[in-house]
């Protein structure tokens, strides 16, 4: 592993943002937001990676055998929860907007604009 491991999160981040900026439908936009977020998963996991090491779970291999960083894995769990909650709330909002306006196009939904 080398710097190439960071090209993937960078790519996911940029492509997700591109999707958000050009999106014409909020559900698509929420999907793109999830893509941006997955870049943080990949980043965190590659930060903690060690060549040749196993999982930091010593149920079937002895303590002391090389293992990747458990801390970033714990952080990713929080990250996943954050992603799930943000998506749930956004979809709830999008549902309500669609009921009232009949559209989910960000270009046509402009708060406090006629």
């Amino acid at each position: 592993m080398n710097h190439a491991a960071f090209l993937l999160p960078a790519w996911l981040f940029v492509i997700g943002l591109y999707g958000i900026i050009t999106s014409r439908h909020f559900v698509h936009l929420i999907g793109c937001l999830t893509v941006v977020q997955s870049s943080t998963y990949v980043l965190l996991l590659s930060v903690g990676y060690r060549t040749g090491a196993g999982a930091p779970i010593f149920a079937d291999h002895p303590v002391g055998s090389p293992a990747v960083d458990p801390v970033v894995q714990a952080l990713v769990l929080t990250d996943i929860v954050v992603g799930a909650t943000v998506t749930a709330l956004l979809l709830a909002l999008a549902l309500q907007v669609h009921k009232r306006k009949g559209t989910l196009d960000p270009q046509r939904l402009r708060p406090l604009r006629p």
Partner: protein
Amino acid sequence: MGASGIRTLSRSLCDILNAVGTSERHGTNIVTLVNFDYRGFDTLGEEYILFAAVIGAVLLMRTHRGEKTSARPGKVSEQPVPLRTDAVALGSRPALGLTLIFGMYVVLHAQLTPGGGFQGGAIIGSATLLLYLGFGYRTWRQVMPTAVLDPVEAFGAGAFVVAGLAAMAAGAPFLTNLLPLGKTGSVISAGEIPLINIAVAIAVSTGFAVLFVEYLEETREPDAGDEE
């Protein structure tokens, strides 16, 4: 140079945890030990992020529909409720039991193997959708009345804080483990970690169930009609 390509100054925290975690906390899954003990306070916040999101989503959806109408089954607007085929019902019923058992397994082995309260809770929460597929809307709503789900979810969230406060009552810092650590590798080991995982699993699974109910209700018209 670390394996990931970043010039690493220190790996001491990760090395300490991997080296002493198991002997110190009598658990083999270091990730769970980090999540529920070394950095348990983060996880408490994380649980409340989920809790707050569920309260928020309910606020956004149920308040608008009216608290009372949520208790009644309704019909989908402008489209008939799709009929379940027998095959779906027949497949879902055994799958429900298996999924529930698998979820509980994941929760209870948090300190031993990959998994924990969040993952298991999500599995158990999803199993409630199989209830809907296998037994129909009415049964599904009867088995999980929202008046019960809300308090149970609050209990799961609150129990984590209470565990922290209990340590303070005993004179130790917030979230210090009070229970005996047990034998490494057994289901009942690692002190409070299994209990906290169960509390988290309760909060997460009921939280998911509440969200499923609210989202499905959103697609239905409030007046009671024929069902399936």
